[in-house]
């Protein structure tokens, strides 16, 4: 992982326009605000969808709720863009950060969970009518989704408490010792 992390950090740090924008006094707070608005769109829509899979509001057909998915996708898109901007601006604060690494792990798990849903049960679940109890696997999918997205939010919030302190690109030896080998 070490060499890859170093290469990744060096590479994304070269996106100068993003770094310059983030260094303006409004750059970071504005991007954070957009990231939290994206979070709200994503998590709010996903939570409603997952809870319907778990059986809440059974009188309403699941397909009716599927119309909320584009808003979750919009929130996710906002957060991929704004999240990438943070990483491009301060790559060394993220790539060696435990909390950030776990956030990516839970993001991948949440993504796999979504993929599993669409590949294995979307057709059956989406065509079920009002009052239908979702199949056990669909309920499990909803529960896992809620858990993974909450874990993403928690790890995201913890990033700031796990900042690598000595990872400064200038101090090459300490940087390699503290940030890559460990």
């Amino acid at each position, binding site marked *: 992982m070490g060499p890859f992390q170093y290469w990744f950090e060096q590479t994304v740090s070269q996106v100068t326009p993003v770094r310059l924008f983030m260094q303006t006094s409004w750059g970071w707070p504005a991007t954070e605000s957009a990231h939290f608005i994206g979070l709200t769109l994503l998590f709010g829509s996903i939570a409603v969808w997952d809870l319907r899979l778990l059986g809440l509001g059974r009188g309403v057909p699941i397909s009716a709720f599927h119309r*909320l998915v584009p808003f979750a996708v919009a929130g996710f898109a906002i957060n991929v863009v704004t999240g990438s901007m943070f990483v491009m601006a301060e790559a060394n604060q993220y790539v060696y950060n435990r909390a950030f690494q776990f956030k990516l792990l839970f993001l991948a798990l949440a993504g796999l969970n979504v993929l599993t849903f669409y590949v294995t049960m979307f057709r059956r679940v989406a065509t079920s009518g009002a009052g239908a109890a979702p199949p056990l696997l669909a309920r499990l999918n909803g529960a896992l989704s809620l858990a993974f997205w909450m874990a993403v*939010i928690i790890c995201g919030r913890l990033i700031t408490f796990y900042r690598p302190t000595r990872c400064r690109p200038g101090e090459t030896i300490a940087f390699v010792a503290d940030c890559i080998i460990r």
Partner: protein
Amino acid sequence: MLDPFFIWLESTSFSVWMRESPSLFAFPLILAAHTIGLGLLAGVDVAHDLRILGAAPKIPIEFDRYLRIMWFGLAVNAASGVALLIGYPTKALTNPVFYLKLGLIAVALVLVNVIRRRQQSYAPRLLAAISLLCWAGAIVAGRLLAYTYTRLDATS
């Protein structure tokens, strides 16, 4: 003017624990809970506003069972918000942006009930749009609290 109050509050053991405990379960996880509560409270209400504005038209407009989830999010955020406030009372209460945030949340919460009363007879689209703007504004104001404070604690 409020300084004696700030000094007293910041000397209570809970306030000290919020600021100084090295435990992940103190400040960091309470902050994370505040963010999850934000997702549930603002997120579910935003979904309801989008429904009023015409998205997902097959979902019944009442959305009642989901509004319960929203009130759960409010409970989480009221509790975690008070804990964060006890940790840093001077930082929040001397910052006008904090009152702006509370005001926007108050308007959004009042709108929840106004919209619920009117949605039976017509789709209150303007109110739903105002509600969306209030939540966006409250989130921006909340983020800006980390950048706009002038005093961190009563000694500063």
